[in-house]
């Protein structure tokens, strides 16, 4: 089982079973209040369930931070079509490795969260879409599903209450774009993972053109605790409008890296210094990516802030998916910008021209700048080009590529200039082009 030693500052709600013996088994789950929230939900009306989730101030943990209760309330009630639940376990935002732990250590918590969502909207079927690289999680999840079917928590007449629900795993095949909700739905239907035009949103027309609730693994995993302890209690763990705890994935130049469950609004500097044990080698902090590589980077002096959706928004960045990537004073920011763009260029699905061409062009420019070639004009062009991608694509991948790039060029322009100034042409190769 993969998990790190708990830290005293953690508030363990979603991760409370991590470290228990056989934590993934249904027996362990049932012995530790498992499926109690489902029992409670079976006695509630769909509106009551949705109101409880609204009261929890739970916001989508995949990255966008949309209020979960409100998302659920958008599913139309009086339509003939079947309704579906889709779990986004296509975790692939660079810096993020939390859903993996939630499935590996406590798969029944996810199943229970899905069942409660199904009751809230009257859904009959659901799929857990797991990225292809996480094959071992499909085995763990399939085992947990089989246990739940055998004990009457899935299938026909669940808990003897006339509630029917089928839940399956579905594997991806390697595509970051499929973490985007509408591309995920295309992929689930057996097609290329290109985004859909919205509206209609998945709540109205999602999987197989039926009303669908689609949330991140961590979002569903928070639901049993909300029903068990009450929405207000969950909300009180965090800060106003940002309820509960969330999984923060610490990576990069820290003494201690790992995934920690901390209350919403936990101070970033405290996270770096106390949970992460400070920057490696006693070096100074240079920058932090606060929520996966799509987020604008924060300079060290901007890091004195609480980690919640609204505070990060105010700092012109995002809480994103909880991937906190810490960079020390020796980090080459031009190289970091290039590696991030290399990723988006590779993962752009090619559907929208500003993203397909923009990421390719930016990768070429950044490759040249990283090599110390190019001109000051190229540095400006990187910023201009990225700004012209913003908001001009069907899905957020274009923005995700542009935002960190814009922030790095603005905040670390001196490093681009220094590379240009320090460049010395290799002899006899002074007119060499950088081929990408």
């Amino acid at each position, binding site marked *: 089982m993969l998990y790190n030693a708990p830290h005293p500052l953690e508030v363990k709600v979603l991760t409370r079973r991590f470290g228990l013996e056989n934590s993934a088994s249904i027996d362990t789950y049932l012995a530790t209040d498992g499926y109690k929230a489902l029992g409670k939900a079976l006695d509630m009306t769909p509106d009551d369930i949705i109101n409880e989730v609204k009261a929890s101030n739970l916001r989508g943990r995949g990255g966008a931070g949309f209020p979960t209760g409100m998302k659920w309330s958008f599913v139309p009630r009086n339509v003939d079509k079947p309704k579906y639940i889709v779990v986004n376990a296509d975790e692939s935002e660079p810096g*993020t490795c939390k859903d993996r732990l939630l499935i590996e250590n406590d798969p029944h918590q996810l199943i229970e969260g899905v069942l409660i969502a199904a009751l809230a909207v009257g859904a009959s079927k659901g799929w857990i879409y797991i990225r292809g690289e996480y094959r071992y999680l499909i085995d763990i999840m399939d085992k947990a599903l089989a246990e739940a079917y055998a004990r009457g928590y899935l299938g026909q007449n669940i808990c003897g209450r006339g509630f029917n629900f089928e839940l399956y795993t579905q594997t991806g095949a390697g595509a970051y774009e499929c973490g985007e909700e509408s591309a995920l739905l295309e992929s689930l239907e057996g097609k290329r993972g290109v985004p859909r035009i919205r509206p209609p949103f998945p709540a109205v027309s999602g999987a197989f053109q039926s009303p669908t609730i689609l949330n991140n693994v961590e979002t569903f995993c928070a639901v049993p605790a909300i029903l068990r302890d009450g929405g207000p209690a969950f909300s009180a763990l965090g800060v106003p409008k940002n309820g509960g705890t969330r999984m923060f994935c610490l990576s990069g130049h820290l003494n201690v890296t790992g995934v920690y469950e901390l209350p919403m609004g936990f101070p970033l500097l405290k996270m770096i210094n106390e949970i992460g044990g400070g920057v490696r080698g006693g070096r100074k902090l240079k920058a932090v990516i606060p929520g996966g590589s799509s987020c604008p980077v924060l300079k060290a002096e901007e890091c004195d802030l609480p980690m919640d959706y609204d505070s990060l928004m105010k700092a012109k960045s995002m809480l994103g998916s909880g991937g906190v990537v810490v960079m020390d004073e020796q*980090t080459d920011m031009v190289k970091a910008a290039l590696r991030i763009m290399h990723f988006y260029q590779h993962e752009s699905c090619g559907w929208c021209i500003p993203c397909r061409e923009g990421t390719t062009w930016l990768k070429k420019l950044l490759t040249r700048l990283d090599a110390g070639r190019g001109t000051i004009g190229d540095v400006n062009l990187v910023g201009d080009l990225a700004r012209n991608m913003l908001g001009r694509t069907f899905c957020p991948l274009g923005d995700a590529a542009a935002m960190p790039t814009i922030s790095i060029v603005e905040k670390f322009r001196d490093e681009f200039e220094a590379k240009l100034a320090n460049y010395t042409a290799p002899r006899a190769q002074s007119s060499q082009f950088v081929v990408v």
Partner: protein
Amino acid sequence: MNFSPQLEQKFADLLTHYPEGRQRAALIPMLMFAQDEVGSITPDVVTELAKRCGITPLQVDEVIGFYSMLHRKPLGKYHVQVCTNISCLLVGGEELYEHACKKLGIGHKQVTADGQFSLEEVECMGACSWAPAIQIGYDFHHAVSPQKFDQLIDALRKIQ
């Protein structure tokens, strides 16, 4: 074309997971599981899965082209994937990838002459807090130093 009885059972089961008339949805899992058994997505696999999902081979082809884990040519027996994305890069992922190229004597998406190893520089695999990370086949290996990499490869070479 026939697959093993276990895989046939898996496919039969898969096709029941979706709404009536939407069996195409089984395509991507079928491609992944078939590739694991056959070794790559051969033209025969394409034709067979197209038939089973009720679509044309061309529709299967366009799906294969989109997903990075689907391969038309056989990979090595051990497919070594090294992540060099940001979290891994910061703690030596790039150096590890260069080391892997030297150790295996091959580059990105190449296969060793004996067919035992293939190498791929991959994007984030969700092991950021335990970087640098690699996958060999579907197995994760965390906090991989060049020394640890050599031990892993040497152990696999001994198995041959």
